[in-house]
Structure formats: structure tokens, C-alpha cells
């Protein structure tokens, strides 16, 4: 067990380097002040110990007002630097760069389910290419979990019915641990996974291994499976707003507000359709809560990102074809 001892975790992302610099700064300041206090305590305790035969108590030492105000005000300077520096690292860790690729993560007791835009799905493992900023869009199927990759120094909770995100840019090839750090029940300690950072060309090969088509394609199947197209048909007789070129654009609501059509908005519109009604439309959509899985919603989001003008699938028939097989009558059997 002793040959594995490391004082510091590996720094395998750009954020890790920022966090480690911040850590060293904090340690320098706190270590300095701590040593000063310790030195004063020890030297006073030794120097001013009561000697044998000492009579009476020492005279009063009046408190110095300027000194009191000095140590009341002086820490604020250090704290301001800590706060601002910490805020800078935090903001950069939660605002992904524009070119970040999104990977979709669903947590549940007690596993991690990941989907890549290219279509690969994996459980408790996440493959990412070296050097590419990767944003994780995350939600939970049950209780709160927390995604924690110590070697990347990032941490973010996964909430049921809500999206959170975090991003990272790996700087080293290797495999790294992924932990759930928010207590989630019996096998919380078993909700661990692996992050595999690969060379970009290896990653490309891995992507081509076993995909069932891109996430957007799977999202198109979901779009047809739940018959979204019946109403969101994008044509002149549509009862519901067109979804073409919708993703990321502002949407005018019936109550006068304008909101961006982001991931959270799309999810809410599927699960709680009456929460926000698009201006000019009726509140007629039924909820898909409990029918559609979180992973399917992610696939729909991926699909909507690609859905351009005039690309909504055509409603081929007004009525769906019969899907069951005709009943078998034993009368005619054997012929």
C-alpha cells in the first residue's frame, strides 16, 4: 500500500492546473499566518511561563486600539485576493468555451450513463479525446448525485428534473477515477467510474466502433416514436409551434416574456408542457412525464440542435398503420 502513496493528485486538466495554483497560494498565506500564530503562542508560553517563587500577578497590558483595528482590517486584504482568485477559477470552470463538445450524462442509483453526440453510449466509463474541451450536460433519474473527477479538480451535482453542467479540457492521456460524491444510498461508494483520455485519432477509432447512429439520429427516432411530428409538423396546418431552427433561439411566450430555447427549456416543454406556452398557441400538449426517459430527452435535444429549416419529417399518413398482427383463428388450422 505504501508504493502508491501520493501527496498530490495528478493534474490532468486545464482546470486542475488553475486549482493547484490557487491551492498553493492559499497554503502559502494560511501557512504563513498559521506559523506566525503558532510561533507567538509557543514563544509566549515559554517566555512568560510562571517561574518558581514568582509572587503576585503581572501588571496590566492595555490593549492597543490601533493593533486591534489592524488585525481586524488586514485579513480583509488577503480575503479579497482569495475571493477574487477563487471566483475567477470557478467562473472559468462553469462557463464552457464555445467550441466545447457536449456529452450527456444521466446518473441513477448507482451508475453513470453517458451518451456521445456521435452515438456511443457507455456505462460507468467515459471516453474523451485529449485536448478537446468537453462539456457534460447532466441530470439524475432519482436522487441527487455528484460528478467528481479528482484528477480534473471538477465537481458538480446531478439533480433530478434539472440540468447542470460542467466542463473540462484533458491535458494528459490516461485513465482517471470518477466518483459520486453526494451520498445517494446503499451503494453510493460503488457509484464510481473511469474517465479514459485518448489520443484524438484513437478516440476517432473508438467512436467508429459500435455506434448505432448519431444521437441526433436516435433523437429523430424518438421524435417519430412519440409522434411529436403529429402536432409539431412544421407545416401550414401545424397545431403546435415548429421546432425547426429553434435550438438556442429566443422564444416569445404567451405571457409576454421571451426566453431562450436552451436545454432546460426543451426538457421542461416535454415534461411540463403547460409551464411555458409559446405566443399564439393553445395549451394543448399532454405531458410526457413518466413516459419518456431522461436519455430520450437528451436524444431529442441533440436532434433539435440539428433540425434546420424544412427538415421536419413529413407526416406520411393522417392515421398510423395497424401495428398488431391479426388474430389467429384455430378453425382454419390445420388447413
Amino acid at each position, binding site marked *: *500500500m505504501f508504493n502508491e502513496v501520493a501527496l498530490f493528485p495528478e493534474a490532468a486538466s486545464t482546470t486542475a492546473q488553475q486549482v493547484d495554483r490557487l491551492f498553493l497560494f492559499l497554503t502559502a498565506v494560511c501557512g504563513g499566518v498559521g506559523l506566525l*500564530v503558532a510561533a507567538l503562542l509557543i514563544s*509566549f508560553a515559554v517566555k512568560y*511561563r510562571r517561574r518558581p517563587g514568582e509572587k503576585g*500577578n503581572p501588571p496590566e497590558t492595555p*490593549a492597543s486600539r490601533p493593533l486591534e483595528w489592524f488585525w481586524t482590517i488586514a485579513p480583509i486584504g488577503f480575503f479579497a485576493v482569495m475571493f477574487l482568485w*477563487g471566483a*475567477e477559477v470557478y467562473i472559468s470552470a462553469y462557463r464552457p468555451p464555445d467550441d466545447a463538445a457536449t456529452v450527456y450524462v444521466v446518473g441513477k442509483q448507482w451508475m453513470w450513463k453517458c451518451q456521445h453526440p456521435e452515438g456511443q453510449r457507455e456505462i460507468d466509463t467515459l471516453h474523451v479525446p485529449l485536448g478537446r474541451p468537453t462539456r457534460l450536460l447532466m441530470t439524475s433519474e432519482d436522487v441527487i448525485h455528484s460528478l467528481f473527477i479528482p484528477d480534473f479538480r471538477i465537481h458538480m451535482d446531478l439533480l433530478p428534473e434539472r440540468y447542470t453542467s460542467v466542463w473540462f479540457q484533458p491535458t494528459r492521456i490516461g485513465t482517471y477515477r470518477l466518483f459520486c460524491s453526494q451520498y445517494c444510498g446503499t451503494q453510493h461508494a460503488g457509484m464510481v467510474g473511469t474517465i479514459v483520455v485518448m489520443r484524438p485519432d484513437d478516440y476517432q477509432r473508438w467512436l467508429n466502433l459500435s455506434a448505432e447512429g448519431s444521437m441526433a439520429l436516435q433523437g429523430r427516432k424518438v421524435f417519430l416514436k412519440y409522434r411529436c411530428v403529429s402536432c409539431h409538423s412544421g407545416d401550414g396546418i401545424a397545431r403546435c409551434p415548429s421546432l425547426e431552427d429553434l435550438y438556442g433561439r429566443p422564444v416569445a411566450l404567451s405571457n409576454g416574456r421571451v426566453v431562450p430555447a436552451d436545454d432546460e427549456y426543451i426538457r421542461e416543454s416535454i415534461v411540463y408542457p403547460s409551464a411555458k406556452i409559446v405566443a399564439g398557441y393553445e395549451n394543448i400538449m399532454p405531458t410526457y412525464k413518466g413516459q419518456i426517459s431522461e436519455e430520450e430527452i437528451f436524444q431529442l435535444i441533440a436532434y433539435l440542435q440539428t433540425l434546420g429549416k424544412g427538415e421536419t419529417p413529413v407526416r406520411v399518413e393522417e392515421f398510423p398503420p395497424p401495428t398488431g398482427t391479426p388474430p389467429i383463428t384455430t378453425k382454419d388450422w390445420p388447413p
Partner: protein
Amino acid sequence: MSESHSGEASGTRDDDSVRRNYLNASYSVISWLFTTDHKRIALLYLIPVTLMFFVGGVAITIQRLSLMSPQGALVEGDTYNKLFTIHGVIMVFFFLVPVIPTVLGNFFLPMMIGAKDLAFPRLNLLSWYLYMLGAVWTLVAVLAGGVDTGWTFYTPYSSASSHTNVAMTMLGVVISGFSSLLTGLNFIVTVHWLRAPGLHWFRLPIFVWSTYATSFIFLLAVPVLAMAFILVVLERILQIGVFDPALGGDPLLFQHLFWFYSHPAVYIMILPGMGVVSEVIPCFARKQLYGYHFVAFSSFAIACLGFFVWAHHMFVAGLSLYAALIFSSLSFLVAIPSAIKVFNWTSTLYKASITFEAPMLFSLGFVALFTFGGMAGLYLATLGMDMHIHDTYFVIAHFHFIMVGGMVLGYMAGLHYWWPKMFGRLYSDWWSRFTAIIIFVGFFLTFIPQFVAGYNGMPRRYYMYAPEYQVWNVMSSAGASILGVGYVIPLIYLPWSLWRGKPAGRNPWGATGLEWQTPSPPPTDNFDSTPVVVRPPYQYHFQKAQNEP
């Protein structure tokens, strides 16, 4: 502080030991169970609070033994989860929060202000019964199957997912919460109305100031906790949909309500310890407390600011960026009054005449560990840093430095400081000093490795863990065994002193407070005549050499 006895030599006074006091006034069980004497109620608390400490201690002992192996040597899964929940619930709600206010506060707050009792003696007894009801209730919930949510009871796990005795445990905590609430109310009224003649606000000992500040936190925070817990219980039973998103609730709302209580509760736990240390250090340094006004006001600054930092427990919980920035900056502000106290305690030692009896050793340990743990808190208040160490062993180590290194050492300091007053007997000097050192060393060995494990990424509440963390866990468990020994030794020498200890006399330490000017143990009414106060506290330079034989 008062002229009446100051300067009078301490030491044995035969007439004190045979006279009637609060202990020998009556011996019947009824006289204890229905007592309204604040001193007897303090002792009624001392026993169950100590028992609860060891119940919580047994739970963590099993966990630390189990964590010697990465796979979990003794327990796993549900059992481990129940053990850390028991440890947290018992230690926080039934030991750390009540211990100093109910034992030392109950006993000494009236005596330090020259009063005969608290303002509402019968309410005080009711507080004790509520505490006992809550404690027994919770222990029954634990014995009848346990609870596995962690002491934080986060929703929707607690309200929708856990199949253990969540509702019953939470009700037990709520019941004991009302005990704290009534105690706080009692203390506030007592400090306002029952101060001795001449004892104006800036002549109050710091222990009174900090207990008074703590009482305000009780009054303002406990109702929020009770409300949040009752809502979780209702959601479990009636499916009302407050916190569970599947029912239309908001799981983060619970975290806000919970930490609105539980962060101030951290100050409930540490402020009384700071009060004790502010009594003990001047006494054994034989020196006035440096910067009295700054220390007194910093208690109040902590109590006030402590209410505005709760969301720093939620920096990675999906909080908005602006909320995170605001709560981070406020969290730094609350560090300032704590720093003021540390600097003033240190300065009190300057040009002093220091002896190192057990209370002083515990207090110096408090200052060292509190400073260390407080500075670890700065890491957690720093947003970019918390993002990495949140919910790891770094956090565990941080708050144990404050709660155990700070509060438990503060309590031990207070118990050793006032023990001779409470029972009229001196405990073993050698054993008590030895214990103070053992606890201090054991504590460091237990929790320093946890900082390293935490920075390396070991998450909390794991019954099994990645093998690279084993060395830190083995070191921590080894340290904990030393710490455990340190907690057991006082169970022997303190009770032993009751029968075999030397009589303490009125004022064995040569201290200035009013509580030292009455016989030990004190008579039921505390003072023969109401003391009159003419000076600020800690005027050690006016005293002659009390400690000389």
C-alpha cells in the same frame, strides 16, 4: 470582579465542605427529577450528554476500524451508512449543540452574573425533559432499524428513496430542538434581567456574552430546522410534494432550509467553546483578556454574519453563479471575527505569568486546532477551491477540527476548569494534563491524514474506497485509537475525584469570576448575599498571588 471576596486566599475551608450545598440539600430521586435548581439540571444534562458522546463514538470506532481496508473490513453498504448517520445525528444534535449551553451554561451562567437561578427555572426543567424525550426517541429509531440518510437528510433521498426510520429520527431531532429553543430563551431573559448590581453589559464575562449570542442563534434558527424536518416527514407520509421533484417539489429548497439552520448551528457549537477559552486563558495567564470589547463584539458579529453564509455548502449543487459569488464573499467576512478572537487570545499571553494546568492545556489546544481548522475553512469558502474539495475528506477534516478540535476541547477545558466548583473536589493534576496532551496529539494524527486524502479526492461517506487512499485511512484510524484513549481516561479520573479528590476550596485557580466567590460546591441559592460588582472582568493585576500556598 466583586470586592466582597477578592484577594481572599483560596485553599481548603473546612466550613465549606460540611455546609449544605446543592448536592447534599436532598438525596431523593424525586428531588432530582423535579428539581428546578439550575445546577442540578446541569448535572441531569451531564449524564445523558456524556452517554450520547460515547454512543456516537462507538459508531465512528466501528467505521474507522472498517476503513482500515479499502473493501471495508467490518461493515459495508447499509450498515456503514447507518453508522455514519448515527454518528452525525447523535454527535451534532445530542452532543455538540447542547453540551456547553446545557451543562456549563446552565450551571455557570446564573452564577457568573450573580443570580440565584435562571429566569424560568421550571422552563429549564421542561427543556431537560424535551431533550430526554428527543434523545430516547432518536435512540429508539436507531435501535429499531436505524436511518441511513446522513445527518444532512438531503432530499429527495430522505423523502422519497430511503426505506429506513427517517421520519422518526427527524421528529426526535425536532423535539430536542425545542429543548435548545427554550434554553436559549431562558438564557436571554436571564442575562437581561438577573444581572447583579453593578454588572453592566461591558462587565460581563465573555462566556456570558458568547452564551447570550448562542441563545439568539437557537431562537432564530431552530424553528427553521423544525419546519424543514416536519415538511420532509409530511412529504414521506402524505406525499405532499415540497422537496421531491417527482411530486413537483424542489430538492434544493431543503438544502437552503437545512443549512439556514445548520450553518449557524456550527456557531452554536463553537461560540460557547470560545467563551470557555476566553475565561480560562486569562485565568492561567493571570492577565486581563486582551481586547475585551473586540472579543465580546466578535461573538455577536459571528452570530449575525453566520446567518448569511449558508449557501456556501451548495457551491456545486446547482446554485446560480451570482448566488455563489455573494455567499463566498460573505463567508470570508465571517472569518474576520474568528481571527480577531485568535489574535486576542494570543496577545493575552504577552507578558503574562502562565501555568499549564489541564484547563489551560485544553484551551491552548483549542486555539491551535481552531486556528488550523478555521484556515482550512478559507479553502472551502474559496469558490475555485471548493469545486475540487467539496464533499471530500478535506471537508470532514475541516469541520472536525472546528467541532472536535475546537468544541470538544473547549468543553473539556470548561469541564476541567469548573469541575472543582461543581463538585468541590480536585481531580488528578497529572492524569488530566496527560489526557489533554493525548487528545491533542491523537486529534492531529487522526485528522491531518484526512486533509491529504481529501485533496487527493477521497469522497466522504464511502464504505469502500480506491486503494491509493488506504495509507491515509490507516494513519487516521491509528490516530483515532489514541484519541479514543484520551476520551476514556477522564471517565476514570473525574468520577474518582468525587470520592478521593482533594477538597477544592472556593477558588483553586485564583480566578476572578463571581462563580468563584461562593463555596464549592455552591449552596442551592448560589450566594449568601447578592454580590455587587465594581470592576470589569479579568482584573488579574489587582489580585494578590492566589496560587501561592
